[in-house]
């Protein structure tokens, strides 16, 4: 389903202009988690441009982006795809009851060596 209103919202949240993309694919070529993402950074830009946002929002890829900013750094057009992925993910987890990580999921299997930073950043990324 095409949703241009949502596209506008995502552009506003991310500050990204999807029309700047020239589809060179450099962002996806440099993405360290390419194999673990069903949709790659250039596809996030492309499908947001098309207003086909549902499939992105329902994909696990929004949680496997590492926020490493490699795609942001290396995009020759300063499109900054990771900001698009972040906006799509936020719209998902901001929905009531839609937190991706819940405290009860981690407490049982907590590794004694795991630094607090892993927990704070995972909760920042995956929950509201």
């Amino acid at each position, binding site marked *: 389903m095409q949703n241009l209103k949502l596209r506008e919202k995502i552009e506003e949240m991310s500050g990204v202009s999807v029309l700047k993309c020239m589809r060179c694919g450099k962002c996806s070529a440099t993405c360290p988690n390419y194999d673990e993402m069903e949709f790659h950074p250039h596809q996030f830009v492309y499908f947001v441009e098309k207003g086909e946002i549902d499939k992105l929002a329902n994909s696990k890829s929004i949680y496997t982006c590492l926020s490493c900013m490699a795609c942001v*750094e290396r995009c020759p057009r300063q499109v900054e795809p990771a900001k698009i992925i972040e906006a799509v993910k936020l719209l998902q987890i901001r929905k009531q009851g839609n937190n991706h990580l819940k405290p009860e999921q981690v407490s049982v299997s907590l590794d004694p060596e795991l630094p*607090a*930073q892993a927990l704070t950043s995972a909760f920042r990324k995956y929950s509201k």
Partner: protein
Amino acid sequence: MNFTYYPGCTLKAKGKDLDIYARKCAEVLGVTMDEIKDWQCCGGCYTTSQDEIATKLASVRALVEAKNNNTELLTLCSACHNVIKRVNNDMATNDYFNFRVNNYLKLDQPYNGEATVIHYLEMLRDKVGFDKIKEKVVNPLTGKKIGAYYGCLLLRPSSVMAFDNPENPTILEDFIKAIGATPVIYQMRNECCGAYCTLEDKAIPKKRSDKIIENALSKGAECLITACPLCLYNLKVNGGDKIPVYYFTELLAEALGVK
């Protein structure tokens, strides 16, 4: 030399060593680290969305403290540094964000990004100077082949972090030379370790760490150094203990004879 110091949550627990050695070395180097009394956790991860306000307030409070103390804000954990520096940039350049934060905080003086955020490594390079450190070394780590692991957070996005050349950084290699050791250059030193995805799917940081370690070993590295507790965890634990990984401050303390 005085700095307002922001340690962050991990440096009070699992990442203690990063902090303890940094303080010992600071003493030797004539640097005073004044810890903010009631600092709050930065959240560990910067959220790029422009309408995220509440998640960035802890950083602004630390920045305001540094401004009021009339000193630069010293960070040590790569993640804190990344978050706080990017929030400071938002305060200086994003009117909408600045307005909403100041409107909420009701400070005596509005905050507009006046403070400077400086990482401990930048402090060593730009304030103390690697030459001066070389002079103070009593136990040079001669012959030790060290791979610098930068990861993402210190370098990217370079338009805001302005830490070093994002694709060919040299600050950690210069640091390694200053403590008398030999830097080993390997391509993956600025590629991601898998970060917080260790809670989503451990296979991701395992795969990332394997690639990084394999690359470092193939270039002859005997150990790796980092400024990030999560990188250390991923490389060490998820990487299967294939190579020793240290905080850079631990090796500095060893070289300065205060370990």
